[in-house]
């Protein structure tokens, strides 16, 4: 009996190992956040072609999408991600802090804060802009209904909130107290706090709630293109925030699986003109100057604040604004 099981196991082991050696097949898992689904579908097939030419190896990239924080928790709890491409650096910081799967200075390893593409926060309004919403100051007017997800549960919403805060600070004589009052007024105009960015888009687009949706630029473009140019318009405010969705290799995983080389090549490919082109096609702002110039018409120039300069980095911003008892909680406390 035992020998029989032993034989069966041996056969099974052989059967699974044969394809590995014969085809030089390699698998990568990219754990990402919600709105990048279409971007990485395109990018993965482009990279697979490139890698076949370069290394004569077939690479299959699996994608996993979900809320940025949830995805980071899955990796912390043991999901075998070769690379993560998340909405904000804070979530990747936690992968270092809690599971030590990556070095602390992970963000220094790739150019531009390890963010190959950027995005920003824009307004999506109904066709004709009936409430005449031009800038952040219009959002706090009485009677204007603003749709944004909950900053406590959504990475995108944190960018929305910080962009509003940054705008208030940049006004004449702007200070912390005024900024707090500004976001308090803004969130008074929010009737629904969905838990994620896609949920808010649905609330605004399908349910018809609200006069303006605060959204990722790429989500706003998607909504306009997919759901009707005759229904929505994008409004770009005078000031917004530079959203840098970062990427990194998960060292402990790639070293165990032996996929470091291909995983690093995968992320570097994001920075090549081809990778940048794909990002731009999916409405992420490219870093590459040439590609950026080519798509300059799509992405209007806007004054962009950065999280590091304005807020002292994500760790600090998270603690001050979004942790329990932080400023976001204070504006809702009675």
């Amino acid at each position, binding site marked *: 009996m035992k020998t029989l099981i032993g034989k069966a196991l041996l056969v099974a082991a052989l059967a699974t190992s044969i394809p590995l050696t014969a085809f030089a097949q390699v698998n990568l898992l990219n754990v990402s956040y919600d709105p990048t689904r279409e971007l990485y579908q395109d990018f993965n097939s482009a990279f697979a072609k490139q890698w076949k030419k370069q290394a004569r190896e077939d690479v299959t990239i699996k994608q996993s999408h979900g*809320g940025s*924080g*949830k995805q980071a*928790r899955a990796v912390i709890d043991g999901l075998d991600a070769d690379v993560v491409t998340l909405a904000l650096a804070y979530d990747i910081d*936690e992968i270092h802090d*809690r599971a030590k799967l990556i070095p602390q200075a992970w963000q220094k390893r790739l150019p531009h804060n390890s963010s190959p593409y950027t995005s920003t926060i824009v307004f999506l309004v109904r066709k004709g802009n009936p409430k005449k919403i031009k800038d952040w100051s219009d959002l706090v007017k009485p009677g204007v209904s603003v749709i944004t997800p*909950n900053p*406590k*549960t959504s990475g995108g919403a944190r960018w929305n909130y910080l962009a509003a805060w940054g705008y208030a600070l940049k006004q004449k004589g702007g200070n912390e107290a005024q900024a707090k009052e500004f976001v308090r007024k803004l969130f008074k105009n929010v*009737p*629904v*706090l*969905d*838990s994620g960015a896609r*949920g808010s888009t*649905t609330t605004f687009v*399908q*349910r*018809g*709630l609200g006069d303006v949706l605060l959204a990722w630029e790429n989500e706003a473009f998607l909504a306009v293109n997919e759901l009707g140019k005759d229904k929505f318009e994008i409004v770009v405010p005078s000031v917004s925030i530079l959203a840098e969705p970062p990427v990194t290799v998960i060292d402990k995983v790639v070293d165990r699986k032996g996929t470091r080389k291909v995983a690093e090549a995968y992320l570097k490919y994001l920075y090549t003109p081809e990778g940048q082109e794909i990002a731009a096609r999916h409405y992420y702002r490219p870093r590459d100057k040439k590609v950026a110039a080519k798509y300059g018409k799509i992405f209007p120039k806007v004054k962009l604040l950065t999280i590091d300069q304005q807020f002292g980095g994500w760790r600090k911003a*998270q603690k001050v604004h*979004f*942790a*329990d008892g932080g400023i976001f*909680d204070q504006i*809702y*406390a*009675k």
Partner: protein
Amino acid sequence: MKKSQRHNVLPGFGLTLGYTIFYLCLIVLIPLSALVFKTATMSWGDFVAAVTAPRVMASYRVTFGAALLAAAINAVFGVLVAWVLVRYRFPGKRLVDALVDLPFALPTAVAGITLASVYAPNGWIGKLLEPHGIKVAYTPLGILVAMVFIGLPFVVRTVQPVLEEMEAELEEAAACLGANRLQTFVRVLFPVMLPSILTGFALSFARAVGEYGSIIFIAGNMPMVSEITPLLIITKLEQYDYAGATAIASVMLLASFIMLFAVNLLQKWSRRFAG
């Protein structure tokens, strides 16, 4: 007595009991003890602060209040549905019978999105209610609607078999003895049905308290107003505050357990009352 015990229909009491305990440990107790251990990493002061924060307290009120109300609504209307399905014959009865199970089978997110789209101010029902100043979606009322929706099958499916077994002769006898309709229902039928109604009530309540997927789409999730407790647990997790999340979870668990235990006792009592 001893002999009859030995000749049990299912042999191997020791083995089956061992298996039962092992299985319960594996499926129920070990995950739940992990919850307790995780919670135990925080100090008592932190624990109390985490589970009694104003926002958390508001969410208990919303969650448990709406769940109780939803279970009560289901207890009334679920019995009605079960009664109609058992006592009457009509075309399409099987279809209606199958419809009852739909809230079981539907992925909760789908249920939530569907409900939100129907009850939103531009939805089929929401459009009709809006002019009367009634808002369902994105208010606590929306939470109630979702909870009623997911809880309905529990009452129907627990009451139905009892009704099926109840013989129509019982009612006839009561009528012969001079009872009017109300008396027949209150004195004869209701006591027999009560234990199963209570079970259905308890199941419906427990399900509503733990529900996340469908409610989140219709609740509006406004702090202090329409935030349910499971959302706050997710919020804590989103901040990587595992201990805080499990602290709230253990409070919910305890509250639900006490409720279910009380309903069980009530059920026992009502059975004696019926018998």
